[in-house]
């Protein structure tokens, strides 16, 4: 039996509290929600997986990453290519090279292969990213995003570019993603409180100091980067397995900024912040979109205002950065709200 430190015990409690909230939201949607609401909550949970994956690297190493949607895309496409039945691939990908359209695997094997592929790609890219700091690393991640997107668009024989890649079996339901997200919350929180997570956070506070204490920054950043990439692939796979259809467009700048805004609003240093930010923006944005269409409120016919959701999202980022750069939660986790500081 492993001995847990007091912060790890608190972490376990915090993660359990978050899991309870996730389960409560999910189950109440399942029981009372309409079809439309189930889809809405599902997409919020996919974004939650993305934001949690992002938090693992950004929150601990505190380097802004802009390539996360690309990793989500890699995971989604890898799983989709493996799992789609051959008779559908014969229609949709007739010119696929390397016999990609000649085999079909079961969903679990496909998902594992997708995780492995994304992990390897993340590792190879990570070797370079972790050696840079600040803006340099952010630009490099931007380059990764653009390169991956160009490849999705260019190799239409494999990825179908901006056209829909269809025929992926829809095997995920809200219940499946609920289980996955609870698992990921524990992983993200566990990493934050682990020896690696603490050392990494220390190195983000004071790089020179941490190195002097014998922390191997590059190795730790690489671990966080790869773990983050794998979690993003989980998000991508969940996305593909639910919708049954994917295309390259959702894995580009718009999605990058949306999820980034979620993490920033909640507070990137804490897992609770990631969950809070995702829920606030996912549901808030849905409300703004409703306003955008020009509904009738209390007998007043509001005009149609396209672009309102973009303005709202931008304002959230600007206001958070000016008023509370640490986000709503700052450095706090959920258990700090009801437990005394240990």
């Amino acid at each position, binding site marked *: 039996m492993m001995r847990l430190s007091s912060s790890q015990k608190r972490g376990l409690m915090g993660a359990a509290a978050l899991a309870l909230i996730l389960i409560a939201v999910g189950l109440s949607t399942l029981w009372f929600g309409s079809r439309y609401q189930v889809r809405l909550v599902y997409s919020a949970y996919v974004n939650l997986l993305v934001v949690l994956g992002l938090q693992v690297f950004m929150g601990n190493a505190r380097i802004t990453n802009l390539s996360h949607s690309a990793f989500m895309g890699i995971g989604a496409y890898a799983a989709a290519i493996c799992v789609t039945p051959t008779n559908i691939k014969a229609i949709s990908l007739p010119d696929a090279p390397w016999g990609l359209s000649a085999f079909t695997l079961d969903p679990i094997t496909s998902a594992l292969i997708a995780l492995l592929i994304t992990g390897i790609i993340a590792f190879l890219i990570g070797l370079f990213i972790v*050696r840079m700091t600040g803006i340099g690393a952010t630009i490099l991640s931007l*380059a990764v995003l653009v390169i991956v997107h160009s*490849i999705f668009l260019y190799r239409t024989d494999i990825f179908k570019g901006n056209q829909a890649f269809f025929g992926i079996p829809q095997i995920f339901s809200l219940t499946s993603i609920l289980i996955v997200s609870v698992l990921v919350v524990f992983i993200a929180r566990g990493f934050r409180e682990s020896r690696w997570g603490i050392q990494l956070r220390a190195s983000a506070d004071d790089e*020179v100091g941490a190195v002097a204490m014998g922390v191997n920054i590059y190795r730790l950043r690489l671990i966080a980067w790869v773990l983050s990439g794998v979690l993003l692939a989980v998000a991508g796979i969940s996305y593909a397995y639910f919708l049954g259809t994917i295309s390259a467009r959702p894995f580009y700048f718009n999605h990058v900024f949306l999820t980034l*805004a979620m993490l920033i609003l909640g507070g990137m240093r804490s897992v609770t912040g990631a969950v809070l930010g995702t829920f606030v923006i996912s549901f808030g944005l849905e409300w703004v979109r409703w306003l955008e269409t020009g509904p009738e409120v209390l007998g007043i016919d509001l005009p149609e205002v396209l672009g309102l959701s973009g303005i709202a999202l*931008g*304002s959230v980022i*600007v206001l958070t*950065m000016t008023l509370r750069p640490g986000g709503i939660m700052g450095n706090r986790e959920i258990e700090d709200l009801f437990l005394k500081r240990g």
Partner: protein
Amino acid sequence: MEYVAQQIMNALSFGAEYALIALGLAIVFSIMGLVNFAHGELIAVGGYTMVAFGALAIGNPLIVIIGAILAAALVSVTLERVAFRPVRYADPTTGLLTAFGVSMILQNIFLLAVSPRPVAVTSLYFLDWPVEVAGLRLSSLQLFEAATTVIVIIALTLFLRRSTLGLAMRAASLDFEMVRLTGIRANRVFAMAFLVSGVLAGLACIFILARRGSVDPHLGFNPVLKAFVACVVGGFGSLPGAVLGGFLLGALEVAMLVLLPQEYGGMKDALVFGVIAMVLIWRPDGILSPPVEKGDKL
């Protein structure tokens, strides 16, 4: 031979445009460490100003051009006051994200107030006519662009070396505390940096619109993304670095267009960004930036 000379001229003209935008980014970054992603929206502001002049039936090219530059400069200074002052002393990441937010807001305001679709700007077509220099067929626009970039570089160098405020700006990029101790107002230095940056965006806007002939909410995004990359490659915050990076990127893009076989055309961006990534891995702080030890006071 002629073909090569032609392509070199093309590369120079692309490079001049990137350098112009990159300079605008670098001057702000050198002073306050802000990666101003909203720079692209300043270019769009200039474009929409031209549309407004068109709607008012003011066709005088001088008024249109000066109006666009003034509008971009004005918005740039306003943004400094409203959005970027609170994050002035924050770390670069906070600034970068704020700028992303500002850029998102402005893009959607254009979308809301004008139109999501491209709007035609015809008042600048007169700038573009074919010229023949030493047997090379060029567009007058390319010459104007190259000339403007050279003039801008000379004017900026003179300003930064000869005027008090210019000296203060150079000093501010090294040690801002010291500059404030000498009695120079911080606000004035920042406002000046944003003013210069806005004027540069306005100039870039003229050339971009003369070539494209239309403006849409996302007009500035791609050029600024490229210019941003140029800055990073040259050495972020270094003005000569921004110019070098701009021309390097221009040369790289033209080389890709010329050397890549037709069917790989779609991979141009991927390859350009791939080369950029290589340069960054080789020199993480850019080509022209001095080596800095971690823990140095910046």
